[in-house]
């Protein structure tokens, strides 16, 4: 565990023997040259070069040897130079002796410089270790590795921490290093009390390890005979400085060791936590992880996780923020804490690239700071909220779907919104398909995370629609109503399901990883499919996802059904209304007519007002009616009413008996089906005189305009559909040319104005002096427009019929006169 430093601290110097040998060779060579030249050329003084060279390369001792050799050669040179005792001899000898002396002094100076440089480097290296992120053992290993062999051949570090003294580290050099280390490590530590750093006979220094006022232990430094080194008093002083630094490094590590002890205790607790906990260093390395963390990141054990490089762990996942944007590693709370920030907990969605499993987590990070207050470690607590998130997502999706259902009855729009709900939370794209009734399944809605791809998805579905008889896929889901979910879609499957090469290329371009097709169920029948695809996000679908999708599809199915019913209803209502109301009345020879119809409210509030005119035995019948109620039921009832009266009246000799039939028909349908009717049978006698027989069934009396006056005519009778056997009393009035009968529904008199309703009195006042049917209904319309305030609740219908005169009778001339007189 103790890491040895990579490079020895000792500067790379030439071995001492090289300097020695070089010096001796020079001395010997020059000596030999001097011998060979004899007295002709005397160069004996040059041997002094030898010690100088050695001084540059080797320690003082070797320099001294070479210097002695040079002196010896200089002394002996007298014999071959034949100059013993003369002045030149002595001079040369003196030069060599002095030069040798200088060389030795120089070598010593150089050795001191080297020594202090080495020691400075040693101190610097010592300061660099023990920043608190290494364990006590690691720090000891680094420490002893620095000291051996730079300053000692054997280092023993004994430590007294919180408990018993123990041997923290041993480092030896030389041949038997391993054996010595093993033996010394086994040795029991009895006493670490050291008063002060002391030198023991030149071969050992014992130094006290003391930091922050606390004795941590002792460090013994020894040199061996093998290395030939000896400690001098100044080495003991240096050892004192060294031990101070070492003690600081160990103390820092010791504090960390305390943390570690705590960690060991916490580890059991953290290990049993369901939340994942990791501790990371400034360098991004994971220092600790509990089993939950390992499991959640897809590792078998915390050990395996810790052994994995951080970058590899990060690369395993595709990570997104809650809003779906992708996340930079630097923004992870742990990294931000280490950068000195105080980040908020972060909600993350991560998809494991390999498996496609999706996880939601909340990551919280806090920092462990060093004494200077800068962050040292980040402690991450990673809470898995996948379940909660899924539930929330499901709830949100379904609530959203519910709102859509409530808000819109346009089902294609609703389905589009359902598709958009599912993206991107549930899938990268979502399509809704419905059978088109001609053997194909058509995509009616599509949503994609990338809006640019929507057109592509549409094109794909348009060019290659699904056929209802296909054996698999959406067609199968439509047939059996069972969901299909496919993860890690293999390429072969795409090839199989593709209709041709181009189709294959198109679907391959989608980059699908997983797909679900779930049925839109309505009453146990699949009426369409919801397809959800995972591509860009690389996630796979779980059973829970399928459930959410099914629930969403159920809501979508209800939307389709509701909308379909509604559409049918409103279509029926509109059709009925269109068929019932705005048709022009037939030409009625001898009679002039005009009509008014004003619909109230929206499409689904189709009222039950109607008017009609047709030939009956002996004349014409005009009808104005109002079916009680609104919407499709009223429209349907209106159709029934109108056609019953018309058909029966045209068949019977007494057309007004049609009201009896209508009553029976409505009464038989239960309490709700009521209709007010005012009808008049218009006839002319043999003399060409016109008359009207008027019947009111729960209806306001028609108004007869005659001679500028406007009076109600007819007698009230029971509303049709209310009573089992009612009876009516028709009233017959003669109609002279120009006489106008106005039939209207209660929408006219119930029209709401500023302070009150329009009322019968106001109606009669408006109609007084009206000039013919067109003028009569025109007056009503203008008066209502001026009078009404706000949206009216009821339809308005009016029919005016004027006696023009018998087509064959010249009386019509007179009628024109009389009309003229009346106006």
């Amino acid at each position, binding site marked *: 565990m103790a890491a040895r430093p990579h490079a020895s601290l000792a500067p790379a110097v030439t071995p001492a023997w090289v300097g020695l040998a070089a010096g001796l060779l020079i001395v010997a060579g020059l000596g030999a040259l001097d011998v060979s030249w004899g007295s002709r050329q005397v160069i004996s003084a040059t041997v002094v070069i030898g010690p100088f060279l050695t001084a540059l390369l080797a320690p003082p001792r070797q320099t001294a040897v070479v210097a002695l050799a040079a002196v010896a050669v200089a002394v002996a040179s007298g014999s071959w130079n034949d100059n013993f005792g003369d002045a030149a001899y002595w001079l040369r000898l003196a030069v060599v002796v002095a030069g040798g002396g200088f060389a030795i002094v120089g070598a010593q100076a150089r050795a001191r410089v080297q020594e202090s440089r080495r020691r400075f480097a040693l101190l610097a290296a010592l300061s660099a270790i023990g920043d608190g992120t290494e364990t006590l053992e690691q720090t000891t290993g680094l420490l002893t590795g620095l000291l051996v062999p730079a300053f000692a051949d054997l280092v023993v570090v004994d430590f007294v921490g919180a408990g018993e003294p123990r041997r923290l580290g041993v480092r030896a050099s030389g041949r038997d290093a391993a054996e010595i280390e093993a033996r010394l490590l086994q040795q029991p530590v009895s006493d670490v009390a050291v008063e002060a750093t002391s030198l023991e006979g030149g071969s050992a220094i014992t130094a006290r390890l003391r930091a922050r006022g606390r004795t941590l232990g002792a460090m013994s430094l020894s040199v061996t005979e093998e290395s030939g080194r000896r400690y001098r008093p100044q080495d003991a002083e240096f050892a004192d400085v060294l031990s101070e630094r070492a003690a600081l490094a160990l103390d820092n590590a010791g504090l960390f060791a305390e943390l570690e002890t705590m960690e060991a205790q916490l580890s059991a607790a953290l290990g049993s936590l369901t939340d994942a906990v990791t501790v990371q260093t400034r360098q991004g390395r994971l220092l600790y992880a509990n089993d939950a963390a390992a499991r959640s990141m897809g590792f078998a054990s915390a050990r395996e996780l810790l052994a994995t490089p951080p970058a590899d762990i990060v690369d395993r996942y595709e990570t997104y923020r809650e809003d779906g944007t992708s996340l930079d590693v630097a923004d992870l709370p742990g990294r931000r804490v280490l950068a000195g920030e105080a980040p908020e907990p972060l909600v993350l969605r991560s998809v494991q690239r390999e498996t496609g499993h999706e996880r939601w987590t909340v990551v919280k990070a806090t920092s462990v700071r060093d004494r200077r207050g800068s962050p040292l470690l980040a402690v991450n607590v990673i809470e898995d909220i996948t379940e909660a998130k899924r539930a929330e997502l499901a709830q949100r999706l379904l609530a959203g779907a519910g709102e859509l259902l409530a808000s819109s009855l346009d089902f294609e729009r609703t389905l589009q919104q359902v598709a958009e709900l599912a993206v991107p939370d549930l899938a990268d794209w979502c399509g809704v398909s419905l059978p088109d009734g001609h053997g194909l399944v058509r995509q009616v809605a599509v949503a994609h995370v990338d809006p640019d791809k929507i057109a592509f998805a549409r094109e794909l579905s348009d060019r290659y629609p699904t056929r209802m008889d296909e054996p698999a896929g959406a067609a199968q889901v439509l047939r059996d109503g069972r969901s299909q979910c496919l993860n890690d879609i293999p390429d072969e499957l795409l090839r199989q399901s593709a209709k041709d090469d181009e189709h294959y290329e198109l679907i391959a371009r989608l980059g699908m990883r997983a797909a679900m097709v779930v049925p839109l169920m309505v009453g146990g029948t699949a009426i369409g499919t919801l397809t959800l695809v995972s591509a860009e996000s690389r996630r796979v679908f779980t059973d829970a996802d399928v459930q959410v999708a099914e629930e969403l599809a159920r809501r979508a199915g209800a939307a389709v059904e509701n909308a379909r019913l509604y559409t049918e209803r409103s279509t029926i209502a509109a059709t009925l209304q269109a068929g019932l109301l705005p048709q022009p009345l037939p030409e009625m020879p001898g009679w002039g007519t005009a009509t008014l119809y004003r619909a109230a409210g929206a499409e689904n509030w189709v009222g039950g007002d109607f008017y009609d005119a047709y030939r009956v035995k002996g004349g014409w019948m005009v009808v104005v009616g109002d079916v009680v109620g609104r919407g499709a039921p009223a429209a349907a009832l209106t159709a029934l009413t109108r056609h019953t009266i018309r058909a029966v009246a045209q068949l019977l000799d007494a057309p007004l008996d049609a009201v009896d039939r209508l009553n029976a028909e409505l009464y038989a349908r239960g309490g709700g089906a009521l209709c007010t009717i005012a009808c008049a049978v218009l006839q002319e006698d043999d003399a060409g005189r016109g008359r009207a027989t008027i019947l009111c069934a*729960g209806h306001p009396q028609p108004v007869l305009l005659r001679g500028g006056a406007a009076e109600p005519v007819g007698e009230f009778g029971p509303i049709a559909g209310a009573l089992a056997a009612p009876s009516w009393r028709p009233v017959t009035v003669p109609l002279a040319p120009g006489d106008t009968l106005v039939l209207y529904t209660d929408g006219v008199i119930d029209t709401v104005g500023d*302070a009150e309703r329009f009322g019968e009195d106001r109606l009669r006042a408006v109609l007084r002096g009206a000039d013919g049917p067109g003028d009569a209904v025109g007056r009503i319309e203008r008066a209502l427009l001026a009078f009404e305030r706000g949206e009216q609740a009821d339809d308005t219908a009016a029919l005016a019929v004027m006696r023009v005169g018998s087509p064959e009778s010249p009386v019509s001339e007179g009628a024109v006169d009389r009309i003229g007189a009346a106006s």
Partner: protein
Amino acid sequence: MVDPTPFSVDVSQIGPALVVTVSGEIDIATVPAVRAALDGHDGDAGVVVLDLRRLSFMDTSGLQLLVEWRRRCEGDRCALAVVRGPTTVQRLLDVAGLTPHLWIVDTPEEAIADGGSTAR
């Protein structure tokens, strides 16, 4: 709007009689509330009183409700009493030809005292 009286429905049980008093207007929009109040009647023999005295307007929706309850009481052995409303309301009943076919009283007490024998 025409009617300053806000729409409201009051329901009270006086002995065996259910008295439903409607204020304001009965039309397509308000008739469901009146219908719901009348549905509070348990269907047992007794008098159902619909008090129209504080009514300012009624349209055919109200007629529909009256006809519906008239028929229902025929089956349920209960009696529907209508407390006479203002002229406009009575006019509607006249127009609808229903006045002779309804048990019309002047006060709820009158109907309760009678116990429905008149209607039956």
